[in-house]
């Protein structure tokens, strides 16, 4: 068994009197899709924020490829190769698709135009954005220059996933990717995720959508009351089992 890409031990995090994480462990293996499920308040979002740098845990260790890491902000996590698609999407509606893809990582033109005048290589970024989008098999984002706010929920999701796929070199984290979508669009995002899996990148998927989880996940991390209650697989457990462990009706 190969060593985990991303691992955490004993994570705790409190917001005032609320203990969101009370000693959570976590392990993501190479090339796998790991789903995280859990009831509301179990600490899923907080766990993800610790992994993605959006927040720092109070205690506990985080290991990337076996090395301890501390992320003070999302930029550091991104620099380490961890890309996250947040539940709130973190896209800027006013900017176009290419700008969103490259937000925070804009490319400048080569030479003095770029270094002195700080001119952006807009054409270059647009080209690469189109390529990234095509790679994921998204066909109908016809106009790479249209602003994100004119896109439907599913399309915005696609842009966010495309961004993660383009820059993620170690891990991609998807936080509730289908939460705001209808049945048809959810199915299409599921296809997107399958495409992503093809690339070999390990994926962390948080979702309430049990059928989706059981369709896509290799392993399932069950979060409960601030701790990892169990790790199961779709092969060995059923959806009912998973829900039972989630709610505490049953031990792992």
């Amino acid at each position, binding site marked *: 068994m190969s060593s985990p890409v991303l691992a955490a031990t004993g994570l705790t995090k409190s917001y005032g009197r609320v203990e969101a994480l009370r000693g959570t462990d976590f392990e993501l293996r190479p090339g796998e899709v790991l789903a995280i499920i859990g009831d509301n308040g179990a600490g899923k979002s907080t766990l993800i924020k610790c992994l993605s740098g959006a927040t720092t845990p109070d205690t506990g260790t985080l290991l990337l490829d076996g090395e301890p890491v501390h992320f003070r902000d999302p930029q550091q996590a991104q620099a380490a190769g961890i890309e996250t698609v947040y539940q709130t*999407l973190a896209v800027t*509606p006013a900017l176009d698709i290419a700008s969103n893809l490259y937000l925070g990582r804009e490319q400048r033109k080569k030479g003095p135009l770029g270094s002195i005048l700080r001119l952006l290589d807009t054409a270059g970024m647009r080209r690469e954005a189109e390529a990234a989008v095509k790679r994921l098999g998204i066909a109908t984002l016809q106009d790479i220059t249209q602003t994100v706010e004119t896109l439907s929920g599913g399309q915005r999701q*696609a842009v966010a996933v495309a961004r993660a796929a383009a820059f993620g070199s170690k891990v991609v984290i998807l936080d509730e990717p289908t939460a705001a979508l209808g049945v048809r669009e959810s199915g299409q995002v599921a296809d997107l995720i399958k495409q992503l899996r093809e690339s070999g990148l390990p994926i962390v998927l948080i979702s309430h959508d049990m059928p989706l989880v059981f369709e896509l996940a290799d392993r399932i991390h069950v979060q409960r009351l601030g701790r990892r209650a169990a790790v199961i697989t779709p092969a060995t457990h059923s959806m009912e089992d998973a829900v039972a462990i989630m709610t505490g009706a049953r031990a792992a």
Partner: protein
Amino acid sequence: MTTTEPTTTELPTRRRGSPIQALLHSHPSLGPLVVLILAAIVFDLINNRFLNPTNLSIMLQQVAVVGLLALGQTVIILTAGIDLSVGAAMILVQMLMAELAIADGMPTVLALLIGLVGALATGLVNGLLVTRFRVPPFIGTLGTLGVFTAIGLKYANGQTLTPKPGSLLLWTGQPIEFGSFHITVGVLLMILLYLLLGYALGRTAWGKHVYAVGDDAEAARLAGIRTARLLLSVYLVAGLVYGIAAWVQIGRVGDASTDISSTLNLDSITAVVIGGVSLFGGRGLVLGTLFGALIVQVFQNGLALAGVQDLYQQLAEGLLVIAAVSLDRWIRKVRT
């Protein structure tokens, strides 16, 4: 629900609202430009002295200071902030430059530089209030409005300081002639700064980040943008622009005093709003602000030339602002 489609994914597109909505959405300065052109045509029909080269020169000179103030204001408003201290900061810097050069006998270049540093300092204060102390921009700059005004009045002590003819302080009032049409160095500076900031906002990463932070600050942060640093830089840039405005003010009037309109902050915001820049952040171009400032000037001047009472000019301004904000709300409806 798996489908047996091939590997390409079709995603539904939604209607984008009416074509006009979409057009105004992608070109937010179009509305103000149309209004500007229409107004100019109408006023010229009423009094054909309006489009006279002399009159056009006058309007540009009259708009230079507010135009610059509105430019700084635009960058701040793009981040969903606002700056109520803008006029007071300009007056303070103007007195600082004049006092140092005239009363204290400092070499003018040095006085100007120190004045610009002072301008940056006012921007720093506002920026720190917003980023370090998390004070909402409206409240923070309302506070600094009072502080800068008081410091300015105390420093000036009612004096009017007049630079000697030929002083560098007056350089911004120097005319540049093109036949019967002439502008001043100050107007040129205004245009140059608009071009510079327009470039920065449209073609650099910093510009994209300004829009991103204004549109959705949390999304920008999660995308990895250092929002606090970005906001601070915005207030500093605005401060510097106000410093240049102070220099232009001295050149235009020929001296420095605190006896300047106290509604400069509202005038700058009016120009920004009429120019199609959204008060909610993330949308609009500095070009729009330039149109907005010109529109206000055109109405002021045009109504005066038409012999209409000044009251109606204020009415017109008020109506333009309401129209501009309503239009912005309507355009924003182009969402799914």
